[in-house]
Structure formats: C-alpha cells, structure tokens
C-alpha cells in the first residue's frame, strides 16, 4: 500500500538495552511506516518489541538506558533520535499522541481529570483556562461520556476502566494529532468494553484523518480494526501487508503457525498444532532467522538472516523468510 505521506517512518532500527549478563537486543533491524490517516497494527507476542517501538517513536524511553545501534526514526519529518528534547516535547501530545495500556496507572492518581487534561491542552494550544475546559468537555463528549463536566471533577480512581481509557483517548486527540500511537489500549478491559473503546478510537481517527499505530497481541482485534499489519517476532518484523490478506494467507511460517495454534477454529479438544519451544532469549539473539529454532520447515539456510522482502502477487506484502509464499490458511 503506498501511503500518500508517511507520518511515521522507521528504517532498519536496531537497539539494545544493556542488562545483567549482556544486552537485550530489543529491536533488531525493524522497518515500519505509517501513512497519513492509515490504521496500522503491530501484532506479536509479549516481549517481541512492540512497546519499545512505540515508545521510541516519541523517544519516551529514558535516556541512557538503551543504545541505538543502527537506523533512524522519522516522525512527521523530525529525526526523532537526533532532535533536541524541546522539539520532541512540542511534538509529543501535539502532532503525535499516545494512548497507553494500563488506564488506571496512566493517569496521575492524585489529580482531577480536568486538571490533567487542561494542563496538556494548554501546553499545545494558546487558550485560556476556560477555553481549555470547554475543549476538554467537548472532547469527552465526543467519547460518549455522559456528563463530561462532572467527569472533569473526578479523580481517576473514581472512573471505570473503560471511562479512563476514553479519557486518555480524548486527551490524545486534544490537539488534532496526525498520528496516535495506541499501545494495547484495551488489554486491561473486558471484551464488551474493548469493542466500544476500539470503535470510538477508530471513528475519532477517521473523523480527523489521524493515523493510528495500534499495538496488540490479539489477532482478532488486528483483523477487525486495522488496514495494514506488521507481525513481529523477537525484535524483528517477520511479515507485513494488508491485514485481510496477511491473516487469510500468511506467508511466514511463524504467522501461519500462530494462526493455526489459535483454538478459535480448531475442533474441540483436538490437539492444536502448537509451536514447539519458547521465544528466544534476546540477550543472545539468533544470528539467522529468529524463528528457525521453532520452525517445522527450518533448513540449513535459515541460519542466515532472511531480509524482509516483497512477495510476489500482492502489493505491499513483505515477509522475512527464505521460503515465504502466500498460502491460504484454511480456518
């Protein structure tokens, strides 16, 4: 898919965290982009580097805790890794907003909702207290919050999880961002509420033509809410393409195995085709294909690292496997 303009563009990014006993290669040469108004998903297992990618896109990881070995990030034309902190601070919450996973802890527990919202709003808009307050009320109203003025006077702990997440989304859209990065925004919520929050998020983004980078580990959500998807495994992107086609016809053995291992469509109590073994230890990232150790089709060549290469047959489809081919995955 060729996006008109890329709001976020990550090129060949490799970073590591120095830790006890070496360094964790959290991202190992990922390349990823989000076009204007596009909803892009990143899906992958726990620890594969989704959150690091999101945080790094706004350079929110604490300085000095990580090392960039290679690559760069361009966010709305700014070189995120090199930009001065002040520039980024202007970008954050302005042109580029974020929604986090845990809505309870993501809000300052001792401040009223209103104060927190107004503080951020006024950071990016030259309006007075009353104006900011009116805006906050409108934003909350957009999120279908019944009595916005009253909610502004509440503390986070007085709201339900779904409400809090809606507050965070409202906040994210407070300054008409070009991109919203949502890191597992519904993991802490119930399925019924999840659906509501996701739909609000998508609708709001479409209204203001904002792009969304949506991070999840739920294949179902990816399928329902994204246009395009990146499948990550052990700090690398293993496959990407339009969501529908990736899920319907996965090209990488990992994507395939993952989808087959889901109990959704399996015969009850039948043995599921499980992926053997465990996710590799990122302190010792595999030299070749990260999935080779667990892959049923691994051969000698897999000890060489496969590049993320375009696949024939479909625009925008790419996979990092020597033997990638688009195969229909029969549910």
């Amino acid at each position, binding site marked *: 898919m060729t996006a008109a303009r890329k709001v976020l563009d990550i090129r060949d990014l490799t970073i590591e965290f120095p830790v006890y006993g070496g360094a964790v290669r959290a991202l190992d040469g990922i390349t990823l982009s989000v076009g204007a108004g596009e909803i892009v998903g990143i899906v992958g297992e726990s620890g594969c580097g989704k959150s690091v990618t999101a945080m790094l896109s706004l350079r929110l990881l604490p300085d000095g805790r990580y090392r960039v070995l290679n690559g760069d990030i361009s966010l709305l034309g700014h070189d995120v890794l090199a930009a001065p902190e002040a520039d980024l601070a202007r970008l954050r919450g302005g042109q580029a907003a974020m929604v986090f996973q845990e809505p309870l802890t993501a809000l300052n527990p001792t401040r009223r909702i209103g104060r927190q919202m107004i503080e951020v709003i006024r950071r990016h808009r030259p309006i007075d207290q009353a104006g900011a307050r009116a805006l906050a009320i409108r934003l909350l109203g957009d999120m279908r919050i019944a009595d916005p003025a009253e909610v502004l006077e509440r503390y986070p702990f007085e709201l339900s999880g779904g409400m809090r997440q809606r507050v965070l989304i409202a906040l994210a859209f407070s300054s008409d961002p070009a991109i919203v990065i949502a890191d597992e925004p519904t993991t802490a919520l119930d*399925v019924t509420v999840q659906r509501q929050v996701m739909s609000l998020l998508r609708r709001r983004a479409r209204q203001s033509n904002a792009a969304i980078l949506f991070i999840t580990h739920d*294949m*179902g959500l990816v399928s329902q809410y994204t246009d395009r998807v990146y499948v990550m495994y052990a700090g690398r992107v293993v496959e990407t393409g339009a969501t529908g086609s990736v*899920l319907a016809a996965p090209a990488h053995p990992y994507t395939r195995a*993952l989808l087959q*291992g889901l109990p959704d469509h399996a015969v009850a109590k039948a043995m599921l085709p499980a992926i053997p073994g*465990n*996710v590799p230890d990122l302190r010792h990232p595999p030299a070749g294909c990260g999935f080779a150790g*667990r892959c049923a089709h691994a051969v000698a060549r897999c000890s060489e690292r496969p590049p993320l290469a375009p696949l024939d047959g479909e625009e925008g489809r790419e996979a990092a496997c020597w033997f990638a081919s688009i195969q229909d995955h029969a549910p």
Partner: protein
Amino acid sequence: MTEAGIDSPLSVQDLTVRFPVGRNWLGRPTGHAHALNGIDFALERGETLGIVGESGCGKSTLAQVLTGLVKPSGGTVRFGSSPGAEAAPLQIVFQDPNSSLDPRMRVWRIITEPVFLHRRVPANELRALAQSLAAQVGLRPEHVDRYPHEFSGGQRQRIAIARALAADPSIVILDEPTSALDISVQAQILNLLVDLQRRRGLTYLFISHDVSVIRHVADRVAVMYLGQIVELGRAADVLDHPRHPYTRLLLEAVPRIGQSVDDEAAIDARELPSNRRLPAGCFFRERCPFAAAGCEQPQVLEPTADAAAHPVRCHRSREGALAP
C-alpha cells in the same frame, strides 16, 4: 439442569460469597462486594466444565471457595456423594505462573509440596516423584533442581500443573491457566491439559474469559454474570445458540478474525455495574436490549419446557421471546 447426581464428584448449591469492603472505626465493614450470588452446578466425572464471564464476575472467587481459600457466606459445597466429605481430591492451577511458584524453592520442592506438607517423605523419594511428574508435563528430569526464574512462562505453568498432579487429584480447577502466556505457548499448554485429562481421567473446572479457549476445551459451559450463572449447557449449545442476552452480547464482542465491526453500533455498550449494591430483579436488566416487564423480578436458572434446550436465567428467553 444436570441433576446433582449421586455420582457427581463435586456439586455446589446456592453458593454465595460476600467480601466486606471498607471498615469504620469500630472495624465493622461499611459495605460488601457481592462476589457470588447463588451458584448452583454439579460436575460430572471426567468432564470439563468451562466457566466464562467478564472480569470481576466472580470466577476466581468460585475457584477459591472450592479450594477452601475463601469461606462461603452461604450455600453448600459437596465433594462426592457423602455430604461434607472433607479431604477433597481437588487441586488448582493459578493464572500467573510467575507468582504461583515460590521463587526461592527448587522445582522439585515446589512440585512435591502437596505431598511433603502432610507426610514425612525422604528427599530422594520426593525428587524421584518430582522427576516423574515433570516428565508427565513435558519437562526434563534435570529441570527439577533449578529455580523457577530459570524457566519461561510456559514451562512455569507446566511446573504448576505438575504440582497440582502431585496430590493425585481427581478434580483440577484451572483458573485462566493460559491467559498470562504467550499465544504461541498457549496451544502447548492446552494440548497438555487435554492430554492429561485423557490419560488420568481428570475432571476439570476450566475458568477463562477467552471464549475461544473455552469453546475448545469445555464439554459444558457456564456463563457467569455478576456472581451468577446465567446460562449452563453443552458447549456447542451455549456458544453456538446462546439463549441469554448477556451471552449473546459477550459472544458478539469477542473479536474474531475476518469479522468486521460496525463502529456506531459498538459504541453504545454499557459497562458492568458494580457489585457493591446488587441490582434488583434481573442483574442484566440495565444493559439488556430486551428488557421488558417481568425483568424487575429476580430471575432463576431454569430449564425450559423444551427439554432439549439448556437452562437459562432469563424468563424472556424461556418464553421464547428472544428467538436467535
């Protein structure tokens, strides 16, 4: 409703649990969380009873009552045929394998804890037992000399399962055994559980909020809402032909690959009410699109006249007002 048969290894009747919440200066509770509000079911030998429901509906509380961690405020729990039989051949596997294993115990100690707490057994016998159990859950014998932190999440859950098997239980309660695991590992554990059940003739009470997992492992399914079972029946019946409006809402909300969502319709969901004060009448009334007269009455879990249909806690459904 399944008869609380003579043969049922475990049956509960009208189980209620209230947790005191907040205390005034005299130490008296200022309110209660009504976690369970009248649960009835009977397990059948060798089956898997799946329990689904949203967070906070009382699934874990039910598990804790059955394992004796929480005293019920009302109702009875019966093991086997004799009422009040104490020594229940029942074990539990918790959700989070990180916190359910003592980080400072070696694996063989962890696995054999249900044994050595009650009998003095020489250490070498315990290790041998641990090794054989480890083998059954797919761990290597030398693993038993390590500490839990040296294992991955999936392996830790295997250890927890091995420990549950150590006491040679006939019933195992599985409280979301896979929700803390990687999706790529979930299948391994589900396979292991299915395999163990087959080999050892275990009865499972399988708790999960993931409908597809329940659909996969359960013979029968109970859907819980606000501390009550609203629908109970064969898995295929309940999940493919839900009769209770809540079950329908739940199933609809589960994200499915390849299914699209209508945002405008989805936005109007209502959230779960608090269990601090129970609603009068049908607990689901406020969120129910089918609410009508009669719903202000407390609902009971009853089969319909139609013998083929499973019991449901909704008079409208029983009256056939909610044709699927």
